[in-house]
């Protein structure tokens, strides 16, 4: 387990790369959902609510 985390001495670089990549993916997804929810809440958007 320790060797897996250590990644042959490159652990900091490897894990930081994956953390940043998936932080971006999760951040973009969260922002997209947040905006979609905001639009759903808008009463003027009946069509949007019907479709989603």
């Amino acid at each position, binding site marked *: 387990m320790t060797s897996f985390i250590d990644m*042959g*001495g*490159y*652990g900091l670089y490897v894990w930081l*790369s994956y953390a940043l*990549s998936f932080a*971006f993916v999760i951040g973009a997804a969260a922002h997209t959902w947040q905006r979609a929810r905001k*639009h759903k809440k808008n009463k*003027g958007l009946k069509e949007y609510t019907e479709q*989603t």
Partner: protein
Amino acid sequence: MTGLFDSLANPTRFRTVSAVIRPFCFWAAAIFFIFGLYLALLASPPDYQQGDAVRIMYVHVPAAWLGLSSYLGLGLCALFYVVWRHPLANIAARAIAPIGAGFTALTLITGSLWGYPIWGTWWVWDARLTSMLVLLFFFIGYIALETGFERPERGARMASILALVGVLNLPIVKFSVDWWNTLHQPASILRSGGMAIDVSMLWPLFTMFAGFQLFFIWVVLHRMHWMLSERRRVAGKARAKAM
């Protein structure tokens, strides 16, 4: 191609088609990510020279491919908008730009994190790195122009022209490693003479790329969906005011 574009360019039809595609893309991306992470972090072997640092490749290379392909998409949308003035093309470009910029920034950051332990430096002004940075500036320029005008149509037109100019940078990014001496390694996959990467590293790479690609499609379609709704709401308000 034109027929397909014409049929999908209708906003109502687009929304119907995208509502079907989006859940598929989301769940497929999640599956590819889980499987890809397993392959990239556990199943694939370390490199004989770089050791485990090579695992950065499985996020760095897909991010770079997406940065480039999303800019190509942005350029095509800009072309459709400049030539045919189709509003859906502009909405697609607006949806693509920040996500493409994010993937390009991610390419530069993960590249630095890979470069430091292997090259001994975070950054060099070599042709590949510099042209990728220029690509990021084109994305930022597009976003700034698109949102920087009082009249949105004018901003969209200016931004589209800038996006078209930026397309010239794409072959420079791709062939920079062949045209100039660079610290960055030459192409390993899309090159004459076949792929120069072992299949044990190719599968994790393609699996992670599939995950990122499907995620990209999901986000862009979702963004286009609410941008269309927003546009319709604003148009409705303007019509109500006029009456």
